[in-house]
């Protein structure tokens, strides 16, 4: 193999699995260390820079970082139940225990006279506004609802996300001099004629998918579309539901529906899904939360019809199916068992969401594809109309908050570049620093001791209270002591093992001390062969091999990054300093002077 080019920021970035997996590339280990040090405000600001809503995301994020976390791979065959660091809930700790950070937030910039409109006041638009307002852009956000927040506020139930948290973090953005107006946009052409230099569409995926089965019309009074129902609960229009409730669907919305029902009078609430339990789209922890509240999840049942008696919904009929795998595809086929009938008073349909753009005239200059979605560039977020950008669920269909934030950052960079006459395709490089953590012979400026603790559970409020009050938050968050312990589980993957081949004397000290057998000195070969001939086989192909240049004996050093503990023992045992532990800090470049190209900067 060729020697690894560690100058390419992607190499070490990939080693920080959590940061690499985060759509907004939050510097996770950095803020976890700050939490461990009790510097909650600093930890909050690291988050705020990249993901904008630490308090909100610390409760609701889809956590793509956690499945990526090295900790669970490291615990394999070491712990009965390998688990990642509770990254998401540690984020909440930063938000919960921070001081007043308002003084550290940017201020509204001196107006540059350029007007930007954002449609929809959800996380994507708010991110665009946050990135652009301090630069002097005049940002106006339109939303059909009287409050900013979008789905964060309307679809996520209060028992998962209290109102104060939303108000606080949305408020930080509106306080940057961003105008928020309640106005339902009904015509794109009209908006385009209002003199905005750029438009950002972050209107979400607002339409719940319909379930057109016999009885749907006659039972309409007691059959609700999940997201609309959740939204009317949030707005206080709905405060009751029948005693027996069936929730259809296996996603996170279904989980929110069933748990909300349980709090609004539902006694016999069950979730019924077509597929198997394991295949459900809902995050594992959300399923766990629902089950904890005594809500059964029944699987492999395909809805057949709504049962209407005397003009009123009384139940539903399902067909029992099983999964059959054929030609690599999974099909649900009837088992032939008799249909199953479940009685109910209300049904909540949460079988998916769709995008809808009835307000965008198809001759407004914005191209749509065959599935009726706008054509949007995946990098620049630009539509076929040069000054119209999309982000969040509106861009590529339903995803989640953290993706909306990432889209918002990208769109803000594009808008800033566009309005400064720059090429949008030329994206700004991230800010990267690599700094030795060596303080003395056995001293590092990070805590390199590896703790054996298993993942800590976030404490729950008493279920007797939470099931009675739809606004009582279920999760209480870590206390300071538990947060510290959970933070110790973080392996500091951003503190990189950096190898300098010309210093190595091939004494094998690093090989002997490495607890995970990551390091091998061997003759060079192609990657496939190397992976099979290391001290421990490198079978995780998503993890890179770090290969040095040729050493004195003609061999090379090969390190499998997969299960490295970043304990620094290789560097401590290295007599020549060929190994060093260096902190790799990567910050994405947001909109502003930093995102502009060098040529432009020179010209200016």
């Amino acid at each position, binding site marked *: 193999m060729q020697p690894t080019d560690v100058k390419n920021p992607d190499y070490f970035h990939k080693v920080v699995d959590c940061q690499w997996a985060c759509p907004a590339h939050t510097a996770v280990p950095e803020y976890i260390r700050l939490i461990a040090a009790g510097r909650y405000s600093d930890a909050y600001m690291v988050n705020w820079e990249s993901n904008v809503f630490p308090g909100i995301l610390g409760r609701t994020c889809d956590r793509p970082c956690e499945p990526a976390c090295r900790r669970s791979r490291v615990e394999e065959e070491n712990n009965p139940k390998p688990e990642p660091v509770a990254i998401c809930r540690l984020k909440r700790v930063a938000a919960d225990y921070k001081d007043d950070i308002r003084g550290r937030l940017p201020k509204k910039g001196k107006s540059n006279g350029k007007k930007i409109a954002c449609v929809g006041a959800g996380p994507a638009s708010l991110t665009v506004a946050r990135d652009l307002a301090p630069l002097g852009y005049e940002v106006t956000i339109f939303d059909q609802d009287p409050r900013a927040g979008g789905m964060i506020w309307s679809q996520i139930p209060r028992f998962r996300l209290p109102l104060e948290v939303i108000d606080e973090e949305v408020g930080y953005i509106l306080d940057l001099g961003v105008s928020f107006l309640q106005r339902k946009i009904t015509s794109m052409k009209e908006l385009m004629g209002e003199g905005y230099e750029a438009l950002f569409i972050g209107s979400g995926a607002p339409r719940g998918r319909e379930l057109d089965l016999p009885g749907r019309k006659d039972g309409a009074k007691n059959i609700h579309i999940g997201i609309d129902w959740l939204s009317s609960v949030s707005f206080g229009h709905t405060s009751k539901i029948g005693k027996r409730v069936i929730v259809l669907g296996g996603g996170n919305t279904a989980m929110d529906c069933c748990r909300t029902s349980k709090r609004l009078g539902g006694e016999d609430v069950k979730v019924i899904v077509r597929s198997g339990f394991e295949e459900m789209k809902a995050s594992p922890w959300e399923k766990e939360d629902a089950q904890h509240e005594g809500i059964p999840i029944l699987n492999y049942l395909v809805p057949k019809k709504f049962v209407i008696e005397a003009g009123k919904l009384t139940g539903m009929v399902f067909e029992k199916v099983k999964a059959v795998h054929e030609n690599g595809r999974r099909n649900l086929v009837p088992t032939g068992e008799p249909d199953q009938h479940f009685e109910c008073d209300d049904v909540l349909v949460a079988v998916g969401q769709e995008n809808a753009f009835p307000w965008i005239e198809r001759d407004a200059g914005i191209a749509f594809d065959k599935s009726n979605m706008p054509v949007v560039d995946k990098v620049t977020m630009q539509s076929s109309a040069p000054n119209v950008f999309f982000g969040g669920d509106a861009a590529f269909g339903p995803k989640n908050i953290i993706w909306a934030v990432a889209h918002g950052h990208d769109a803000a960079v594009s808008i800033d570049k566009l309005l400064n006459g720059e090429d949008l395709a030329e994206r700004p490089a991230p800010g990267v620093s690599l700094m030795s953590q060596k303080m003395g012979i*056995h001293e590092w400026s990070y805590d390199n001791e590896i703790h054996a603790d298993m993942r800590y559970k976030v404490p729950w409020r008493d279920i007797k209270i939470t099931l009675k009050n739809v606004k009582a938050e279920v999760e209480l968050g870590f206390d300071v002591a538990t947060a510290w312990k959970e933070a110790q589980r973080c392996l500091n993957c951003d503190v990189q093992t950096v190898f300098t081949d010309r210093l190595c*004397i091939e*004494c*094998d000290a690093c090989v002997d001390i490495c*607890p995970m057998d990551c390091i091998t000195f061997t003759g060079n070969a192609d990657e496939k062969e190397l992976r099979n001939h290391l001290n421990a086989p490198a079978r995780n192909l998503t993890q890179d091999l770090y290969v040095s240049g040729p050493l*004195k004996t003609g061999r090379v050093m090969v390190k499998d990054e997969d299960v490295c503990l970043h304990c620094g023992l290789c560097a*401590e045992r*290295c*007599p020549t300093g060929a190994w060093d532990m260096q902190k790799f800090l990567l910050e994405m470049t947001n909109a502003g002077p930093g995102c502009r190209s060098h040529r432009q900067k020179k010209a200016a």
Partner: protein
Amino acid sequence: MTYVLKPRLHHPTLPKNKIGYTRRDYEGKVSTLCAGCGHDSISAALIQAFWELDIQPHRVAKLSGIGCSSKTPDYFLGNSHGFNTVHGRMPSALTGANLANRELIYLGVSGDGDSASIGLGQFAHVMRRGVNMTYILENNGVYGLTKGQFSATADQGSKSKRGAVNADAPVDTVSVALLMGATFVARSFSGDKQQLTPLVKAAIAHQGAAFIDVISPCVAFNNHPGSTKSYDYVRDHNEAVNRLDFWPTREAITVDYTEGGVIEVPQHDGSIIKLRKLSASYDPTDRIGAQDQIAQAAVKGEVLTGLLYLAPDAEDLHAHLNTCAVPFNQLGEKDLCPGAGTLEKINASLR
């Protein structure tokens, strides 16, 4: 050394041996030697060898003297028996222990000061007596604990870190061991575990006095140009006479040797040592020839490594003395103290 304990976590694929232990179960405490010390690599090779041989750690006794090398038994086989003797007296303690209980596996760990200076007499006699043991000499050519004076194994003409030239002739421990009657004599290098580990395994299986001189660079005081025990010097002058493969049983042999020059030496315990010859003229079963070739290589400045001598029909101390086969700790009081009558009989027979 390090202040942080080596984490207990291990690689998910870390294999277990036949008796259910991983290699990590054969480790000891974290080393307190200097970073990069060759001795730590030797410890790693010992851990690997004992793990591969499926030896239960509590069946091993580690004995050592004084010095950097003699500290190392603390850093491997943490669940074995250990005894740290006074300087240079490890062979006596080992001999005594072996006489008392022949069922344990004896590992003597010593250094060049411990074996070639203060303990040279002990070293010679333990070889002479054919004590069944594996004697590892971690040879770095300097007194590391007292800041790098030449030891008795430093080559004549080699330079200290400060530039002083060694005027004295070296003790060649391999030649001494051969001369004194050791039945398994090898030399290796701490920086070459592929060579060292099979040698250790073969030495453990050998039923007699097995000696391995392991050149082990002292990174702090003897790893500079002008040293003949540095990583660079040994790598440049290493002449391996053979490569050894060790097979615990005949059935286990899976490698097909097609090239010529393979010597197969069956051992008493049923294990097989296979030697791939690297030097056509070298015969490791010829004691006189071996001594000759070692001397010739020394003149040329070469470091001859590999299995230098092996007596397939070796005998040990117990055979020489016709001792009781049962360890003392398994004998009853009656056998151990047969009483005044028996003593009288013995005395009478000597009158």
